[in-house]
């Protein structure tokens, strides 16, 4: 292994290993806890309906809550609809911060960059490490969902679960790459969090409002969240076009990060 992977990538994976294990365990727990309640919903479709109807229809649509009593509907509402992707995004943002601004503020980045490690290479290897960690988290999510789907007989085809997990991974990478891009432009840690957090919130709202408000609908495509659950992968499987859009945004943001970081002063 030591000869295959570049030193900084290996180092980054070491730095992130606790975080990777922690967030994967968290995601798996989330899936297990929520799916454990599925049999109750399935066996009491009336109760499920009532609890669903306490929320207005348009909001339900916006949140992607269709039907609690089918496996697909339940997974959509509880696992993939809201909190889990936001949690995975949070993980991506933390990894993005840990890549540049956190070690920059402690001064450790000085030590890294005083080595024959170029700035662009640092950004790329940090992004590679981030991708590895998020892949692990999403793989954990997939595995837990797939197992519970089988155990509880939820009836969701495996490829649909895989398609949704892949879309979630690419969604999280967009915001991880955004964190890198902002960190590439400025070394101010608070600003990085503010800009990234505001973008997550704004694009999430844009997607949600796009479903509620007719006039906002055309702008949904601007939100990465639209390319995640918009094509409804849990029901319809892989949508390469949307996945490519997400991957493309990440690629552009990583390129911006590398170019900007190459130009600026470090630790000022």
């Amino acid at each position, binding site marked *: 292994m*030591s000869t295959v992977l570049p*030193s*900084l990538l*290996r*180092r980054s994976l*070491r*730095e992130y290993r*606790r975080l990777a294990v922690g967030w994967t365990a968290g995601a798996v727990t989330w899936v297990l806890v929520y799916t454990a309640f599925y049999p109750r919903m399935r066996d009491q479709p009336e109760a499920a309906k009532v609890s669903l109807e306490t929320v207005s229809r348009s909001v339900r649509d916006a949140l992607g809550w269709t039907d609690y009593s089918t496996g697909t509907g339940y997974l959509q509402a509880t696992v993939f609809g809201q909190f889990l992707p936001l949690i995975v995004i949070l993980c991506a943002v933390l990894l993005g911060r840990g890549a540049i601004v956190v070690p920059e503020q*402690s*001064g*450790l980045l*000085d*030590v*890294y*960059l*005083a*080595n*024959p*490690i*170029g700035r662009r290479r640092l950004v790329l290897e940090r992004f590679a490490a981030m991708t590895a960690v998020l892949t692990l988290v999403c793989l954990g999510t997939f595995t837990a969902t797939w197992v519970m789907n089988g155990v509880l007989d939820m009836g969701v085809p495996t490829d649909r679960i895989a398609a949704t997990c892949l879309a979630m991974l690419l969604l999280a990478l967009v915001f991880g790459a955004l964190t890198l891009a902002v960190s590439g432009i400025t070394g101010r840690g608070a600003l990085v969090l503010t800009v990234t957090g505001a973008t997550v919130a704004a694009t999430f709202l844009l997607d949600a409002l796009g479903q509620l408000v007719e006039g906002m609908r055309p702008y949904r495509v601007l939100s990465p969240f639209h390319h995640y659950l918009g094509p409804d992968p849990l029901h319809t499987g892989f949508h390469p076009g949307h996945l490519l859009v997400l991957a493309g945004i990440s690629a552009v943001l990583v390129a911006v990060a590398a170019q900007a970081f190459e130009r600026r*002063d*470090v*630790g*000022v």
Partner: protein
Amino acid sequence: MAAVIEAEGLTKRYGRHPGLLDLDLTVLAGEVFGYLGPNGAGKTTTIRLFLDLVRPTRGRVRVLGAEPRRGVGERRRIGYLPGDQVLTGRDTGRDLLRFLGDARGGVPRDRIEELAGRLGVDLSRSVRSLSRGNRQKIGLVQAFMHQPDLLVLDEPTSGLDPLVQQEFLAMIGEVRASGRTVFMSSHVLAEVQQVADRVGIVRDGRLVAVDQVAELGGRMLRTVEIRFTEPVPVDGFTGLPGVHDVLAEGPLLRCRVDGPLDPLVKAAARFTVVDLVATEPDLEQVFLSYYHEGGGEHGAA
């Protein structure tokens, strides 16, 4: 001899704050260069310019023949110790050092262990649990371990106890003996005095003087006491070139001399001299004489 560091008009401004102004400096191969100045004078800025951590506002610098920005590959030939205790993290010192060694193309593990043993630091503990002094030792190990052609050390002895400081000075001596180059900053003059061939003194972002350590001692301030057989007139000594603060108490004359002693000796020779004591100044006094506004002037009578 080849220039290892060449700076011309090197300037770095942070907004309106001048970090470093118009630095012209050449450091030659095999030299130990001491870079002296109080905190905030611009020492760290200079060093960070050499390492391409910050980019010059204007001017040029070449380190090991390359502009720092284009010299990513040259950095394996540089050993850098950052200024303020930046090494941190959960990992053990050993893991951190191996990573840095690998990043520079590989460092024999024996060498890491040997250096750590020499400075007396435990590599099996996590870096962040180490004391300030021990973290500084890890920093020194990583700077020296790949036997770089150029060592750039920012306040290398800060936090080290006196015994380890001596060991560090011995390590610098070995580097010089092997023909390699050291650029070290400090605000502690004694340590620079012991190891440096030349010193530069920086103040408010400007390099105000560069000199051989020996020459600084020769050229600068001296306190001279002369005992005569009988009282001497003060008038015979005031106004001599470079002679200040003349004080006569009976047969004893005290003064401070800036530069050659010759005028004073010639003047003293007119009387019968019993004893003459010239105290060589330490760099600290020299440094202070530069550091006080109007560098080099000493309240002449």
